[in-house]
């Protein structure tokens, strides 16, 4: 026993050491303290930018343009999600171990399983923005570019997560059916799939939130919608309009996030990592049941929930065809693309691509990793701090951290809740390239502004996810601490962090992988790394070079996935 705990101690400390050295290296690479970073000449622009926050442009015709753009962004997200769910459903079954296990038992099936899984890793490693730019050069300017740019990488990600869900669903009922002589495919769709379905649906809503953010980012490269309008306003230095766009994005994202969160909760949702780790799923279900029974003891409330769920499903059924109609997708372009791809193919043949690999890619790869490390460290720290006031069960009256006598309708807890949530919403709703451009008013280009932009964006996402983790915390142990007279900070360090820290770290490390992929979106605005090189190669139609860069990037993603997976296991 003693040896065992000693072993664990070493592993998680080596993980910490690795992270600290990565961080130190990244900070050194930014040139902090060696080269000037702050551009003091941008002060007046920054002042104008922040002042505009209080008087956004509300001119009638401009609001009309913005409303139209909002609908377009929403439609991109809906269509992209719909297609990616289709891809994810088929791919998820094909990537799941359990399917091959029942359908084609033995080494051949396992070999095919590994092959399919490996193939799905490539579309996943490439960020939707690069997909957008690639498709733009192949298909030309049409809405279909934006939709496919979401559908392809998100489809692959969804497939991976769906496969994990299917594999972690208990297989005893499936085995029971198979042992009573049922054909494996029948048993799979009858006995296994329905069990996994609630988690599949919950994850789909989470994916929709992600698609909405991606749709805004894709607007920046010209797909249309809010991202595009915001970029136009920014380039014209019309900050009032810029803030209108920000507020529109926050409103759209805020509504969708709230709707999706409520729906997921009512369908017995668990957090993203629970889906991945599958450990506390039952606990979460029990929690949501418990919450349901304490809050909604009356049948009336239960009926209301049912109406909400059914209404939401009905709204989805109506919205999907409307969104497809709104975007007027030109599907014939997909057919014509094969000719262009035929022209493209010789440019990415091995003899053209191999000479493009050079040592010069190495420092860019290092920069890319450094940017991701810096960004996620800052985002993680900020997210943990904000997750407490942003959680509903902490500082509000009756919450575990509120003082006993507090029971007014409005308190500091409410102010904290609303303000932290708005800040988190703004951070994740505004596309990272726009953030980077704004930061560049006050800083010289380099990896630090890029890292900052990514940090702010991921802080918004992580803070919300962590607040959900806090809200799902079992309260009994905390009440125990409270009743023995522990202070708020005492409860945080003795009750909450020990329980949630592993989950927080797992989220942070998972987001690190995502963050690495996102470096390309700030590379777009000159922040550096492989992303910048890729965008340069794309705009100069250097497909041989692009293929080489993409290969390095995919390998880098695989390496970071591996390190992140190892560290996640170490901190469990």
């Amino acid at each position, binding site marked *: 026993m003693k040896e065992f705990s000693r072993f664990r101690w070493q592993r998680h400390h080596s993980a910490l050491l690795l992270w600290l050295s990565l961080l130190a290296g990244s900070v050194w690479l930014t040139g902090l303290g060696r080269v000037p970073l702050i551009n003091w000449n941008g002060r007046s622009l920054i002042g104008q930018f922040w002042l505009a926050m209080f008087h956004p442009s509300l001119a009638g015709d401009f609001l009309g343009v913005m409303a139209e753009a909002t609908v377009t962004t929403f439609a991109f997200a809906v269509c992209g999600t719909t297609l990616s769910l289709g891809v994810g459903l088929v791919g998820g079954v094909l990537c799941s171990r359990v399917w091959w296990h029942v359908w084609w038992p033995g080494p051949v099936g396992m070999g095919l399983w590994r092959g399919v899984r490996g193939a799905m890793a490539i579309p996943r490693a490439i960020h939707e923005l690069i997909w957008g730019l690639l498709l733009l050069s192949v298909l030309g300017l049409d809405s279909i570019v934006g939709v496919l740019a979401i559908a392809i990488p998100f489809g692959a990600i969804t497939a991976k997560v769906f496969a994990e869900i299917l594999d972690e669903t208990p297989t*005893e*009922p499936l*085995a*029971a*059916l*198979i*042992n*009573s*002589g*049922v*054909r494996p*495919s*029948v*048993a799979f*769709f*009858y*006995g296994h799939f*329905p*069990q996994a*379905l*609630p988690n599949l649906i919950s994850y789909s809503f989470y994916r929709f939130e992600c698609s909405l953010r991606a749709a805004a980012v894709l607007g920046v490269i010209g797909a249309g919608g809010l991202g595009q309008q915001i970029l136009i306003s920014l380039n014209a230095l019309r900050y009032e309009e810029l803030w209108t766009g920000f507020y529109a994005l926050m409103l759209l994202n805020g509504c969708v996030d709230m709707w999706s969160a409520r729906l997921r909760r009512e369908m017995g949702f668990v957090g993203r990592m629970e889906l991945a780790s599958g450990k506390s799923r039952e606990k979460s279900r029990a929690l949501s049941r418990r919450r349901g029974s304490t809050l909604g003891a009356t049948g009336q409330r239960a009926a209301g929930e049912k109406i909400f769920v059914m209404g939401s499903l009905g709204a989805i059924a109506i919205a999907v065809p409307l969104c497809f109609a709104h975007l007027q997708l030109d599907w014939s372009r997909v057919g014509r693309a094969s000719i262009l791809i035929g022209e493209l193919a010789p440019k990415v043949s091995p003899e053209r691509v191999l000479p493009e690999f050079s040592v010069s890619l190495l420092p860019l790869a290092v920069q890319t990793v450094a940017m991701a490390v810096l960004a996620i460290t800052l985002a993680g720290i900020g997210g943990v701090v904000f997750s407490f006031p942003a959680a509903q069960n902490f500082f509000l009256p009756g919450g575990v951290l509120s003082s006993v006598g507090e029971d007014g309708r409005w308190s500091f807890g409410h102010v904290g809740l609303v303000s932290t949530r708005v800040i988190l919403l703004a951070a994740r709703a505004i596309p990272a390239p726009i953030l980077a451009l704004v930061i560049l008013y006050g800083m010289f280009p380099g990896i630090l502004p890029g890292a900052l932009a990514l940090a702010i964006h991921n802080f918004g996402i992580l803070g919300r996810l962590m607040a959900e983790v806090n809200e799902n915390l079992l309260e009994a142990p905390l009440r125990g601490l409270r009743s023995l007279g522990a202070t708020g900070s005492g409860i945080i360090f003795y009750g909450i962090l020990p329980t949630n820290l592993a989950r927080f770290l797992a989220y942070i490390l998972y987001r690190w992988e995502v963050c690495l992929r996102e470096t390309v979106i700030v590379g777009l605005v000159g922040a550096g790394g492989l992303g910048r090189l890729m965008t340069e190669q794309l705009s100069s139609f250097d497909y041989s070079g692009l293929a080489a860069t993409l290969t390095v990037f995919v390998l880098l993603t695989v390496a970071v996935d591996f390190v992140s997976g190892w560290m996640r296991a170490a901190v469990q």
Partner: protein
Amino acid sequence: MDSMHNPALALPALALPALALKEVSCRFKTSGSSVLALQSVSLQILAGERVALVGPSGAGKSTLLSLLNGSVSPTEGSVCMLGQWQGDTYKTVSNAQRRRLQSRIGTVYQQHHLIGNLSVIHNVNAGHLGRWPLWKALWSLVWPQQVGVARQALTQLGIGDKLQARTGRLSGGQQQRVALARVLVQDPDVILADEPVASVDPARSHDIMKILCDLAQNRTLLVSLHDVELAKTYCDRIIGLREGCILFDLPTAVVSEAQLTQLYDLEASAPY
């Protein structure tokens, strides 16, 4: 002890071996070490018999049942399911053949192994799956098929009103009945029950055993039990299993207290 005992009881006219094991050993590999779950076990169960399998935890009862429903293959020896021998010198059966055999053997599990978030009707209908093609199985999830059969089965088990309920929300005892209804709909020749009463109170265990015996009319029943009294009350024959070996295999009337004491006396040396 190798006893191939034929109980001298009035058996149905056709007393064929429904299930049999010949010199079966079963070894599981678990992270480095391997566990011998069954060691050279032979037994024969005739059609229409009602047999209890008793023994302490870890004796190999579940393994024995898994061998007999085809979900586990023996390391050594051969297994007979419904007259079809497999393993050792016999030629291997095809997947389709094995499935046909399995669809004639119904298994009741201690943990029920139901699909929690499907409604009761679908879980009961799962008993048809061995016969239904894929399209019918999927269509039934949308538009339940053969509702009458399912309702009758549930009514027979006393939970006819739960047809539409979500299975996962039922109590343990009700879920047990759903599992039994599934077997009833499957209409097998043999029923295997793996500790069906391990998680219910004494009164419920008698209910469950009565139901099982009802279901086993004109069928063969093999039920593993912890409780020797239940075995004595409901079964014609008792097989005592300990540390992977058969300690005794006798008609209920002949089983002595001493044998039962020895069965559960873990201090005693292994019986070989």
